């Protein structure tokens, strides 16, 4: 089988060589071949030995870490849909419905995004970078389950082209491409990205359950609950207890609802050392350091402050997309800072900004997306100053 596959590629390689019929799409050929085989290229220079870790392994570890939120997202989308539509809540029925909702979104994201990757790689004559495998899966997991497929296509196109390729491709982008795509959809088609109706797919139009259904997310509930100190009770009234928010069986973007699943992913990423734990812990610290003073302040001067501040800070960690964002999005090494202290500051600022946007900005119930994109812009600056400080300690050579 292996031998035959190897021969299959060897026999077809000649069509993709320079001056041959398919020379233009050689990156596509190489992407497929190197998926099956790590190439046999030996070192040309010293050092003569190399580490076994390459970008394929690195990115597939991130994919592995994305599996828990992905599967839970599939289940939850089906569950919410069946619940709202008054259909069977049997596990298989729910999961199959979830597959029907989520798989098309992922397929469009990968298909359209991959097209752009191949196009740019062919024009630039370089290989396709594995980074897209992650972008193409992250993007759909941040979308509401009801997202029209054409918008998925438009969003991933924007993300790949304007978030990455026009700056020179992987490694040269300063924004997270998946979030850039999401931000584009968020501002271009707010009707499909926010509100109460987008989080749950209703099947069977006339079902009575659907009419009575309100699909508000916990963040929306906490933002609109008018008076002081009732945020928690309005959350509980809407069915959002802390354990429920932690486990994630509530309406929201496909992959973001379960903090537990994200924690499993974080565990994989930290144990393998693939993503920066500094950014993740910095983010958590940022949330707590911002929400706690407000929370304490609120206990004394409640009536005159912003009602959402009365929510216990721990809720901010489990609600909405914070866990997903700080674990998978903020840790994208290209758009995050490269220096360790900067990573702490970057993570901390994302956490702090998330809370500030959630609490003080009435226009956006969720803040993690804008917080990450905003801090993406600052990461070169953070790096710059940390490097400058570090270089001052060196004994100069010249």
């Amino acid at each position, binding site marked *: 089988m292996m031998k035959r596959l190897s021969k299959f590629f060897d026999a077809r390689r000649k069509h993709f060589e320079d001056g041959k019929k398919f020379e233009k799409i050689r990156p596509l050929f190489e992407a497929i071949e190197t998926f099956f085989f790590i*190439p046999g290229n030996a070192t040309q220079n010293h050092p*003569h030995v190399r*580490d076994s870790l390459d970008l394929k392994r690195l990115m597939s570890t991130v994919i592995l870490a994305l599996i828990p939120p992905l599967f839970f997202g599939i289940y939850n989308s089906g569950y919410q849909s069946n619940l709202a539509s008054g259909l069977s809540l049997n596990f298989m029925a729910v999961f199959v419905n979830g597959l029907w909702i989520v798989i098309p979104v992922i397929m469009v994201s990968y298909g359209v995004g991959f097209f752009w990757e191949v196009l740019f790689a062919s024009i630039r004559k370089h*290989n396709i970078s594995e980074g897209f495998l992650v972008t193409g899966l992250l993007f759909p997991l941040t979308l509401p389950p009801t997202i029209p497929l054409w918008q998925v296509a438009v969003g991933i196109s924007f993300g790949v082209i304007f978030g990455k390729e026009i700056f020179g491709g992987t490694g040269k982008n300063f924004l997270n491409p998946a979030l850039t795509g999401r931000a584009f959809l968020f501002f271009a088609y707010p009707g499909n990205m926010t509100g109460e109706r987008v989080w749950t797919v209703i099947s069977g139009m006339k079902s009575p359950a659907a009419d009575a259904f309100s699909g508000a997310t916990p963040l929306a509930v906490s933002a609109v609950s008018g008076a002081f100190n009732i945020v928690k009770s309005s959350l509980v009234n809407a069915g959002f207890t802390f354990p429920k928010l932690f486990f994630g069986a509530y309406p929201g973007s496909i992959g973001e609802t379960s903090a537990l699943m994200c924690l499993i992913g974080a565990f994989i990423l930290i*144990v393998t050392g693939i993503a920066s734990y500094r950014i993740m812990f910095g983010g958590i610290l940022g949330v707590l350091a911002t929400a706690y003073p407000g929370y304490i302040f609120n206990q004394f001067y409640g009536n005159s402050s912003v009602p959402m501040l009365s929510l216990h800070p721990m809720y901010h960690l489990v609600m909405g997309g914070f866990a997903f964002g700080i674990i998978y999005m903020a840790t994208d*090494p*290209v758009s995050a800072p*490269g220096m360790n202290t900067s990573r702490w500051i970057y993570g901390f600022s994302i956490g702090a900004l998330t809370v500030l946007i959630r609490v003080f900005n009435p226009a956006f119930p969720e803040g993690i997306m804008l917080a990450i994109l905003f801090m993406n812009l600052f990461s070169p600056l953070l790096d710059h100053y940390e490097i400058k400080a570090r270089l001052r300690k060196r004994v100069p050579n010249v």
Partner: protein
Amino acid sequence: MEPLEKPAQVALLPEKIPFVKPRLKVKIGDKVKVGTPVFEDKRNSNLIFLSPGGGKIANIDLGPRRAIKRVVIALDQDEEYETFPIFTEAQLENIERKSLIKTIMTGGLWPLFRELPFRDVADPDAMPPCIIVSLGANEPFQPVPEAYLKGNIALFEFGIKILQKLSQNLIISTSSENSYVIEQLNTHVTHVCQGVYPAEDPGVLLYHIKKTQAENQTLFINGQDLLLVAMLLGTGKYPVARTVVLGGTLAREKKHFFTRIGVPLGHLTKGRTVNVDNSRYIVGGIFRGYSDKKDSYMGFYETSLVLIPEGNEKEFLGFARPGFNKPSRSRAFLSYFNKSLLPMDCNCHGEERACINCGSCAETCPVDILPQFTYKCILSDEIEEALAHGMLDCVECGLCTYVCPSKIELCDVIKNTKKAYYLEQL
């Protein structure tokens, strides 16, 4: 340690001596003695390289653009020796520094003194701020100091006397694992380095101890090479003895050999290899050395020969395997739990990609360079900035290239830029 019998031929490899532009002083068929000048440096005709054998010049191999690759000397049964002045310790006390350097240069061993940060042959006219003697580089498969010091302690101490004439400041460094050196040379050792490769490298040591800019032009010499210098002045003969290590998975016998400078690789490996097809001969260590053909020779500086598989085979679905025996610094493979020795080969284990700023290189750099940023400075021609980043402190250990998941030749980029910068200044 096993003494090897005399080889039929030895060679000099001018190409492998850094920055030297060789001008030949012999032609094919000439008779040479041990210590007859073979070539000189065009930059400084006093910098001469002597024949490591007595016999006839059998061959002069030229590479591309007529670069002199090798000068091969077929050895006579009874080799003749050129004679050099002999010094006793008392005479050494009274000799002037300048004439001592001249003696070492005429004796062909000045090139063993190298100058940081470019690792060129030391400038004989400059006064070095410091000389570092490193006893054993802890790169895998280099000779341990015990192998060449045993029975030569007095000679080594004579060598130290010579160095004391050359510089006021002498550093003798060894690794904390070399208990033999610490015991035997207790009074001489000034610095004990702790840590894995390349903690003992003179460049790394200098980086950690230097206080001023002037110290950058420190000289260094290997412990084994210092013995050669001591032998030259002590015996009046050009010394050719070398302790060499053969290692690697494809070497059946991994051990020290006592042989001579410029020995053929085949002489070292004869009958001691497994599966000679598709193997790589690495002269000078897996991190810093160069690969050479089986019919080549050991270089002037090199003391190690490593044989490992070329590893140019494809691997089916390699990225998805658990990787229980894949060596990696990262924790992304199950080999993290496998504490046994893992097989190494020369495969890149992936294709070159754009830098994703993961920072693995900076974590391994022994002299605190940020290779991921420094290399971007170099690519955008910001040489001033690269210099500020400490590009010249780079000890060319190759660890950044080793760990890079994007398979970028970081070390090569930095090394070549250093070289270009140096050549521009000459």
